[in-house]
Structure formats: structure tokens, C-alpha cells
């Protein structure tokens, strides 16, 4: 883990992307000139953001700034809201996902999502995990069993549930449910995992566990996480984007954002001077 301050950089942090580690890791998402309207409400304004493979990208910002809107656009979950209009493009692995010919189902098979409130299906733990593989046509019981074990281990919950795989998922605690949801998401072996405030409904201990887990997961996945909790972003992310009123105010490596942000508004936000 690289935690030293990038002392030399005097150039605007927003460009770090193109200068710094960009060379090292591949980009999974490239958003350019994205605008989004809810009816008349211009919720995302000219967003330009690139996200990188095997990194944790955090999105922070005050309530209503468009964080959820943006992350939901990344797997087109936003389409569930009626009357949404977008312009610009989001390239996922070099294909524009906003193109209607891109089937959402294909996209979502590649891009998993974890939500704010744990939302396991009201089924058994096992059934929750195999749901994704099953709908994608995997029926072989042995493979499914393997997937279950692998995913639950990946989500660091295997030991806690291995003896009760066939009990209802709602018997688990909130933190366990959230990890189960992560396991469910891992089961389809996604490329990217989107997380929209995955710990905001959890107690501090469960939150820490999820944070640790995210750190683990980035070895195998690219993770984009929305969070209200600035320290969480600071702790677990490699890059952080600060949104305000639908705009990206600052996007930079996390250490810079939290030690020496470029923009006064970013600083005001992260230091809690904002209202």
C-alpha cells in the first residue's frame, strides 16, 4: 500500500489520472461528458471520470449531489426510474453502455452491484448465492455448490454460514446479510462491483468488516463505491471523486483528497465545514 503523500504534484489533481498510475492499470470505465436529467432536474453535469482495474474508486459528496445517480448509471440501473434522460457516454471496457444496443442484462452480468440496505432475497442463503448463476443457465449441482462455497468465502462469510446454508437469509444479522449480498454478487464472477453506501445501514463493527472485505476484493475485482462516510472513502479507496451538485469537483488519488485537496470546496466538505 502506497501511503506517502505525493509531494511533487502541483498540477491540478484532476489530471493525475492521466499522468500518474493510469499507465499502470487498465481503465474499466471511461465516462465522458455525461449529463443526466430526471425530468427537468439536471442531476449530473458534464461528468468526466475514468475508473481503473483492480482499484477501489470512492465517490463522496453531500446528500443529493448525484452519487447514487452516477453509480446507477454505470450499470444502467437508473433506467428503472421513469423519465430519465442522458447525454454523453460511458465506456465500459471500450464499449459505450449508454448505447441502447448494449443489453443491460449483459452489462449487469459483468458489473455487479451491492446496495445501501442489505437486500437478500427471501430465500435460503444457498438460493441467494446461486440465483445469479442459475438464471444464467448454470444448473450443474456440483458447480453450483462450488460457486456457493467460493463466493461465500470470497465475501468472508463462509465460516459463519456454512452450517446453515439452507436457512432463510433473513435470519442473518445486518452485516452478515450485506456480506451475503456481496457473495451473491461475486457468484456471477463480475468484472466490476458497484457499491452504493454498502455500510450505511450497518453498525461500526460490521462496517469495518465490510471495509476489510473491500480491500481484499480489489485484488480480483474493480470496485466503485459510493459513501457518505468520508473516512471510509479515505480508508479503503485508491481514488476519490468528490461530487457536488451533480458536478465532479475533484477527482484525485485518495491520499491527496484527504491530505491536501486542490479545491476549497473539497476541503470544506472533507473537514466538515459545509452547510
Amino acid at each position, binding site marked *: 500500500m502506497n501511503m506517502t503523500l505525493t509531494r511533487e504534484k502541483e498540477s491540478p489533481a484532476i489530471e493525475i489520472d492521466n499522468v500518474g498510475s493510469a499507465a499502470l492499470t487498465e481503465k474499466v470505465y471511461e465516462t465522458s461528458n455525461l449529463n443526466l436529467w430526471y425530468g427537468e432536474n439536471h442531476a449530473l453535469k458534464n461528468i468526466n471520470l475514468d475508473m481503473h482495474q483492480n482499484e477501489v474508486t470512492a465517490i463522496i459528496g453531500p446528500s443529493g449531489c448525484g452519487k447514487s445517480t452516477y453509480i446507477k448509471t454505470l450499470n444502467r440501473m437508473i433506467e428503472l426510474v421513469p423519465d430519465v434522460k442522458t447525454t454523453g457516454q460511458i465506456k465500459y471496457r471500450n464499449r459505450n453502455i449508454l448505447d441502447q444496443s448494449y*443489453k443491460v442484462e449483459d452489462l449487469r452480468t459483468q458489473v455487479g452491484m451491492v446496495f445501501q440496505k442489505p437486500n437478500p432475497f427471501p430465500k435460503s442463503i444457498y438460493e441467494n448465492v446461486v440465483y445469479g448463476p442459475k438464471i444464467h*443457465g448454470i444448473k450443474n449441482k456440483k458447480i453450483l455448490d462450488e460457486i456457493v462455497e467460493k463466493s461465500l468465502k470470497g465475501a468472508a462469510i463462509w465460516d459463519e454460514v456454512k452450517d446453515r446454508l439452507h436457512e432463510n437469509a433473513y435470519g442473518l444479522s445486518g452485516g452478515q446479510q450485506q456480506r451475503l449480498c456481496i457473495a451473491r454478487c461475486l457468484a456471477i464472477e463480475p468484472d466490476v462491483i458497484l457499491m452504493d453506501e454498502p455500510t450505511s445501514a450497518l453498525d461500526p463493527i460490521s462496517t469495518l468488516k465490510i471495509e476489510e472485505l473491500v480491500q481484499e476484493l480489489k485484488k480480483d475485482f474493480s470496485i466503485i463505491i459510493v459513501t457518505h462516510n468520508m473516512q471510509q472513502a479515505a480508508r479503503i479507496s485508491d481514488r476519490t471523486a468528490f461530487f457536488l451538485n451533480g458536478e465532479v469537483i475533484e477527482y484525485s488519488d485518495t491520499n491527496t483528497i484527504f491530505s491536501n485537496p486542490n479545491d476549497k470546496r473539497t476541503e470544506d466538505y472533507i473537514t466538515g465545514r459545509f452547510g
Partner: protein
Amino acid sequence: MKLINKSHVAKKMPARLAVNTICKGLFFLATLVGLLVLAILFYRIFTQGIGSLNVDFLQNFASRKPEEAGIKAALIGSIWLMVVVAPVSLLLGVGTAIYLEEYARKNWITTFIKVNISNLAGVPSIVFGLLGLTVFVRALALDRSILAAGLTMSLLVLPVIIVAAQEAIRAVPRDLREASFGMGATKWQTILKVVLPAAIPGILTGGILALSRAIGETAPLVVVGIPMFIAFLPQTVMDTFTVLPMQIYNWTSRPQEEFQQVAAAGIIVLLILLIFMNSIAVIIRNKFQKRY
């Protein structure tokens, strides 16, 4: 190690999407069936009845002569019936719902009452007629008055209102109650000032739907013995009366072709009344959409 063959998954996707589209079409067609039936029904009734529907029809009493026959007594009678049913069933229904949701302890009596209510909801209306005849007409000597029929109908729709009110009350978040208790409000104050106002839309919608059931029921009134012919308007709830569905039923069983049209006109009036009541329910529902 990858357990999932992504290319396989991708290959299957078009078929899955096709199934989705087909089923969507089927679901839509199913929805159309209901609408279609309604349309046919309305078309038939309107083409048959519209000719007889005029001001006289609303102002006249029933008559042996189809051209003179009118719906006045039945229409006013139905409204009178509502005047009894609405307050009685709402009062009893909401009272019961409050009791069950707010006061009842979890014991066998409560369970029994609950099972009993949901059972009552399924009891055929005709059985309520038998009950009304025995209890209200006879035992309480209310005769075949509006009151007797109204009470019978109230009991008939009571379960519907109780269930609707229970649901509405249950939907009022617990934290609103706690907030009120937290200020030192008593239970009854809390119910009266917080729970009921918040539950009112749900209760009213349920209530109106229940009333529209009451307004269309024939069987129990037949059993209670409500007369079919009346050529005067009731003055008090103790007077006897007749209602729309009875009048319609009566006309449909007349040999004269003209009476079939009169009956259709009566059905139109009934439907208008029903749609009117349903619209109120819808308006209430949309206007007071849950905001908590």
C-alpha cells in the same frame, strides 16, 4: 479458477430476453381481457339502456308501464341505505380495527376475533340476509326498515372495512406513535391525533370500496324481505324502502321486452353511482398518497 463460462452466459442472453418479451406480451393481453370484458359489458348495457335513461326515469316511481317506470324510490332508497351503512360500518369497523391493532393483547380472544373477522369476510352475503331477518327484522322488531337493512348490510361489509382499516392503521409507522407517547400523550390521544389522521386515506378508500359492495348487493335484501315496489320516499330510517339492485332484478324478470331496457337504464344509474364512489376512493388514494 473461473466457474462461470462467460461466453456461454452471453450466448444464452438473447433467448432469455426473447422469453421476457413474449411473457410481457402475454401479461399485457391478460390485462386487456379484463378491460375488454368491461368494455363489452358497458357497451351492451348502454346500447340497451340509454334510450330509457332520461330525467323522468330518475323522477318517477316504479310502474307497471315500462314507459312510466322510474328509479326514484330505488335510487333514494340506496342512498338512504348508505346513510345508515356508512356511519355504522365505519364506526364499528374502525373501532374494531383500532382495538385489534392498538389495544388487543396477543391472546386467544384476539386470535379468535381475528380469525372470526377474516372468516366473516368469506361468508356468502345471502347468509347475512338470514341473520338480518332473524335479528334485526324480528328480534329487534325493526321491521323491514332502512335501519334493519342498513344494519344487515353494515355487518356484511364490516369485515372489509375492518381489514382495510387494520391495514391502514398498521401502515402508520411505529415511530409516529412513539413520538407521540414520547411527549407524554396518552394512548387514546395518540390514536386520535396521530394514528387516525395518518390512516384516514386508507380507511376511507377501504370504506368506499365496502360501500360500493353494499350498494350492489341484492341477495341479503331479498332474504330480509325488502319490498320491490314502493311508490313513496322514506322519511326516517324506520321507514321501508327499496334499493337499486332489487329494482333492477325485478325489472329483468318481467316478461315485457321494454322492461329489459328499463332494467338496463337502472344498471347504468347503478354503475354511475358505483364509478362515482370508486372515483372518490381513487382521488382520496392519490391525493393522500403515503408521505411518511
